[in-house]
């Protein structure tokens, strides 16, 4: 069953055609990476699914229904984490369950577990300003996972991190995803990251924003960071780089 479906979708901001005739299908449990240069409309596409923006043309559905507004069935992980700075780590993570009037008895063990998984069990009381960028992003991920969303929408979640932290976050995401198998739409402009994580890489171009190639990544699962140095990985990378440079 498909979770996310775009048919001939366009999005314009005034004269700017941020997205143009986009077709995209993401199946349930699939991890799809959107890869493309800055300004090609990756965030725009993700924001349409999240319900933050309205499309201009075409149709789009999530779980078979048109998207009208944001909701907890689509967990979003933002580029700069976007935590609420006046709330502690714990309060940020349980914000969703709380506003959804889920009982404490139900969300508390779940939040405790997810914070343990992302390695923040000793930071429940910390404020976001007291955390490093990587830790903040782990709170952002925990906050999305704790809602048990039908899909995760991640907009360059590791884009602002240093190479080392980035690798460990990628390993963490692989681990968590491989055990939960949530549908993921993942925006990045890092080719390695896209190949390492995704089942499919959709390559986008700018002006107008379009998906030009949809490349299945057949690297075996479960994957670890070791996949980055395999011969197969390099083959995918070569193919994608050729695509991005416009060489066919």
């Amino acid at each position, binding site marked *: 069953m498909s979770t996310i479906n775009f048919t001939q979708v366009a999005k314009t901001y005034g004269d700017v055609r941020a997205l143009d005739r986009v077709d995209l299908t993401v199946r349930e449990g699939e991890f799809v990476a959107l890869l493309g240069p800055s300004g090609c409309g990756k965030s725009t596409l993700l924001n349409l699914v999240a319900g933050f923006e309205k499309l201009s043309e075409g149709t789009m559905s999530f779980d078979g229904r048109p998207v009208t507004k944001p909701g907890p069935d689509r967990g979003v992980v933002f580029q700069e984490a*976007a935590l*609420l700075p*006046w709330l502690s780590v714990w309060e940020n993570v349980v914000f969703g369950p709380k506003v959804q009037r889920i009982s404490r008895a139900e969300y508390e063990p779940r939040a405790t577990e997810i914070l343990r998984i992302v390695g923040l069990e000793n930071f429940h009381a910390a404020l976001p300003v007291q955390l490093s960028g990587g830790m903040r992003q782990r709170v952002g991920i925990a906050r999305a996972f704790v809602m048990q969303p039908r899909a995760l929408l991640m907009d360059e979640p590791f884009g602002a991190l240093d190479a080392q932290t980035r690798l460990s976050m990628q390993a963490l995401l692989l681990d968590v995803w491989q055990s939960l198998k949530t549908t993921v739409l993942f925006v990045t402009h890092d080719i390695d990251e896209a190949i390492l994580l995704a089942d499919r890489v959709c390559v986008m171009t700018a002006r107008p924003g379009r998906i030009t190639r949809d490349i299945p990544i057949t690297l075996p699962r479960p994957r670890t960071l070791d996949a980055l140095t395999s011969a197969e990985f390099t083959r995918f990378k070569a193919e994608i780089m050729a695509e991005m440079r416009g060489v066919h």
Partner: protein
Amino acid sequence: MLNARWAKSGLAMLLPIVLIVLWQLAGHDGALAGGALPTPDRVWKAWLIWGFGTPGPMSLSPYIGNWIDAVAFSSFRVAKGFAMAIVVGIPLGIVLGWSKLAAALVDPTIQWLRPIPITAWLPISIAIYGISDFGAIFLIAIGAFYPIVVNTTQGARDVDKTWIRAALMMGASKIDILRRVVLPAALPAVFTGLRIGLGIAWTAVIVAEIVAVKSGLGYVLWDAYYVGRMDIVIADMVSIGLFGFMSDWAIVQLEFALLRWRRLQSFNA
């Protein structure tokens, strides 16, 4: 740590002490400016009597042992008027900052009424409420309302879009967003408004008590001037300064407790 605090308090006291000493030394025969201004020792004596004296059956002075009454009248008026300004100003500011429609509807009116100083409201206040407590409270509320509502509106308007998106994504309702995102995000601006509003509230209470009520520090201030008791006038002024300062300090303490996240972000943390 403790020493540093004492040192800071000492520094803070230095200038007032120097000024008082100079003022004392400048006076001869216990007075300054051709006898119009009493020196600190006289003010202090008058203040002690005003504060702790017991009026005898024959005493004519109205300033014996009733300082605390004047302070209480003024403070309660400020508290009530300020509370009214908060109760209306903060929620209204949040809504105006959040809703473009509400802002388009209400904001221009606020901006037109705002330049009218509280002194200009005096005749209307007296016409409606007469020489009464509520007239004073009404003036204080009006004076404090504008900075509170204007700053809260600004704070609510400046809320980071991604915070709202994050909350929507987690299933927050409109009310949740206003209460749990917009209000806390606007709080630093709200406190700016509260502090300015409180300053205006003290101005308003003195003006109101001079003109529209017959009790409190403002009333005593003018009354003492009429009977030529400049020692009481000065003691009264210092009292206003003291209580204005203490109420501001209370707000700063509250701000300190509520805005820890903000403090940790700032350069001086």
